[in-house]
């Protein structure tokens, strides 16, 4: 097997919204870019969301075009289902070793027709996007708007019955595929490794993930999304339409017992957004948001919050200390409520469904592979955040999006611009003397 070699100006690690935008911004300027994505599709966390705040735009509708544009851009090479193994500085550039994991489907041949999926006899739990609330076949296209729209085989569950091989019209199934090494020669690197959310079982007082009707904000996104598992909001334990839904804010942020002293910045807004969407999806449901402080700092955010209040969403100040459940698996929250006169009472309130507004954690530690130090919070350290927000302490390595710290979509896209700009300046400044030949005579700025 021959080693694939790619030579680019910039390597973007991570194909979420910030990584895609960085790649597009650099590609549009004529730089050659490679995007390495760990999962089988780009799109990151954003493609899983229902709608975005504060505009309530449909997430699929604005993410999918970016995904397509990234995939079809002349200057962008997409490596999905791939991992970075190591990087080494080589003169002014880097030599990066990556591995393309086997899909057991030849990407070049697969047309995404899903014939294989239709004949596959086995279904397995869909854990990557739907938290096990639905299933997919053993050979499957990750989701309907996945990019690339190519199938892959979950070999651990495969029976090797061969039905997909017979059904595939382009003979793309290949069970002999091996991990494929890819060598990427690049002059700069942009880290866009994103974030993870607080695990649902992180907090023992919130049932440690054992209460079935206590779900995370991300799970609620899927319930609200048009492409979600049920196409409507049902609670997990019995499929009942919840009549009373509570949000527990700071369920993973500003909590030193979880080692997370910082504010995750997005939870207030996504909870308010979901409350609004729920008001539409379940017009009769009562929605309560238990909060310590409401932080609606962005453009149009405060108005968004006031709108939610006006729509009848109940905001109660108090940190939920404990969640238990009654015999019908209705969650009960215990909280100290403080009214506007300073009068306090400790009370227990029962709801049908509780959503934990889980916080944002670093998506991984890039330090060992990239030599980029991380801060106490685990996010990539940016030495001069106010002046050079995307420049790390390693020359030629930049950072964007939630890899640098908790950040919403608006900021992630803005930072992508900053990262692309910083990387371009670095490339232009003679670091690795950019060859004129690499520049496209005509720029292609039309996406897809």
């Amino acid at each position, binding site marked *: 097997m021959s080693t694939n070699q790619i030579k680019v100006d910039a390597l973007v690690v991570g194909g979420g919204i910030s990584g895609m935008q960085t790649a597009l911004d650099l590609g549009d300027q004529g730089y050659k870019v490679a995007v390495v994505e760990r999962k089988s599709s780009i799109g990151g966390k954003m493609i899983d969301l229902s709608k975005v705040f504060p505009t309530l735009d449909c997430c699929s509708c604005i993410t999918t075009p970016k995904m397509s544009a990234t995939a079809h851009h002349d200057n962008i090479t997409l490596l999905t289902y791939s991992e970075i193994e190591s990087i080494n500085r080589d003169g002014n550039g880097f030599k990066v070793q990556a591995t393309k994991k086997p899909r057991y489907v030849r990407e070049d041949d697969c047309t995404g027709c899903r014939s294989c999926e239709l004949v596959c006899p086995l279904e397995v739990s869909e854990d990557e996007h739907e938290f096990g609330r639905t299933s997919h076949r053993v050979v499957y296209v990750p989701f309907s708007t996945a990019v690339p729209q190519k199938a892959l085989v979950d070999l651990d569950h495969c029976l090797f019955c061969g039905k997909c091989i017979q059904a595939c019209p382009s003979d793309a199934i290949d069970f002999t595929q091996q991990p494929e090494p890819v060598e990427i020669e690049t002059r700069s690197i942009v880290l866009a490794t994103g974030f993870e959310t607080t695990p649902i079982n992180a907090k023992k*007082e919130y049932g440690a993930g054992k209460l079935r009707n206590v779900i995370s904000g991300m799970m609620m996104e899927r319930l609200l999304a048009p492409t979600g598992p049920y196409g409507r909001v049902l609670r997990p334990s019995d499929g009942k339409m919840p009549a009373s839904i509570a949000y527990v804010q700071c369920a993973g942020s500003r*909590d*030193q*017992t979880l080692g997370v002293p910082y504010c995750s910045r997005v939870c207030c807004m996504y909870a308010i957004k979901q409350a609004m969407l729920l008001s539409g999806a379940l017009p009769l449901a009562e929605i309560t948001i238990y909060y310590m402080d409401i932080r609606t700092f962005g453009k149009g955010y405060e108005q968004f919050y006031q709108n939610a209040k006006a729509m009848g969403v109940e905001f109660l100040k108090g*940190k939920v*200390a404990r969640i238990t459940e009654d015999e019908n698996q209705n969650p009960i929250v*215990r909280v*100290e409520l403080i009214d506007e006169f300073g009068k*306090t009472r*400790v009370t227990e309130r029962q709801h049908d469904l509780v959503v934990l507004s889980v916080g944002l954690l670093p998506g991984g530690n890039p330090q060992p592979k990239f030599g980029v130090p991380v801060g106490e919070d685990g996010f990539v350290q940016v030495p001069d955040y106010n002046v050079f927000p995307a420049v790390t302490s390693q020359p030629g390595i930049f950072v964007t999006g939630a890899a640098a710290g908790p950040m919403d979509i608006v900021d992630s896209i803005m930072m992508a611009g900053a990262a692309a700009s910083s990387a371009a300046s670095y490339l232009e400044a003679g670091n690795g003397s950019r060859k004129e030949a690499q520049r496209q005579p005509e720029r292609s700025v039309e996406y897809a």
Partner: protein
Amino acid sequence: MAERVNPYFLKELKKYGDVRIEECFNCGNCSAICPLSTEEDNFPRRMNRFAQLGLRDRLLASKELWLCYYCGECTKTCPRQADPGEYMASARRYAIASYDPTGLAKLLYTSPVLSVIFLLVLAVAIGLFFFQASAPMDLQTLRLFEFIPSALIHNAGIIAGVVIVLAALVGMVSMWRRTFQALGYPKGTRLDWWGAIWKAFGVEVLGQLRYRKDCESSAVNKPWYAQKWFIHASMLWGFLGLFVATALNYLLELLSVKATGTWVPLWYPIRLLGTVSGLFLLYGTSLALLRRFRKDDTSYEKSTFSDWTFLALMWLAGVTGFLLEIAVYLPPFAWSYWMLLAHLIVVGELLLLAPFSKFAHAVYRSIALYLWTLKPLPESEQASAPAAAD
């Protein structure tokens, strides 16, 4: 009513323990996680606020301070790691020192060095007081109460008792006035004074109901006899039992039934009560000392000097007491006489320092529990009864 703010309050509180309550951002997690918090009587968050704002008088008027048994749930789950549990304990120490007008409690709580000196001087003083009145030791037959006359012990005990009660009364009245006023019952409200007695003193103080049922809910990994409530109850019951046995013993002497020091068999009711109570005391104090040493519970992690001295004195009282009981059977008797002296010194220190040490929590907690239980009489009796004249 005007509220007086003391800007140095938090600084002062910090002398009484590892207070870091300025970290608190008042989310209310502590109050809501607290198994003892009820709809109206909730803590510790409100107490935290008093420290942050310098509302010393409000804190000293809070019965809630004394309702806490320090299970440590608030400390374990505090998002700011502000340690509300240790703050409450420190605030109780501060309150004991504040209710005490002599300043002795403050000294004992805030200065371990001076405390040690004071305890040693007091020990020598008590020792000398009894030793100067002692008769030569009879090494052939054990005559403890001829070595140190029982009349002297009794009289000294009674005089010390009066002093202790008077000193304690000052603090109790001070605390009662503040906390009762803070309950805010309108003048003329008829309260169920009698009804609260059994529930407060019987069920809560002696029965330790809330400590047992609520505070141990999370401690599933310990058998009942190693749980904090039982350790605490052992000490409480043991001490009370010994106190009653001593008093009854004296009563029998006054009634000329049995002179102090007369040999009686083990099953003799008063001796039996004393022995069993002593065992309880020894068990409770030993386990409490051991668990504090091991720091195997959130509340045991930050023991102060005052915690150690109180427990150590109680433990020594138990140990010397039992050695004394064994001494009767084990000649030569020289060490037995010294043991009596040691026992008198330890018990003397324990009792004389009661109003100024951790011991004082016994009365303040009892008052707080009584006020917590105290509720107005039902509406019907309010209407029919003439308004109280005050």
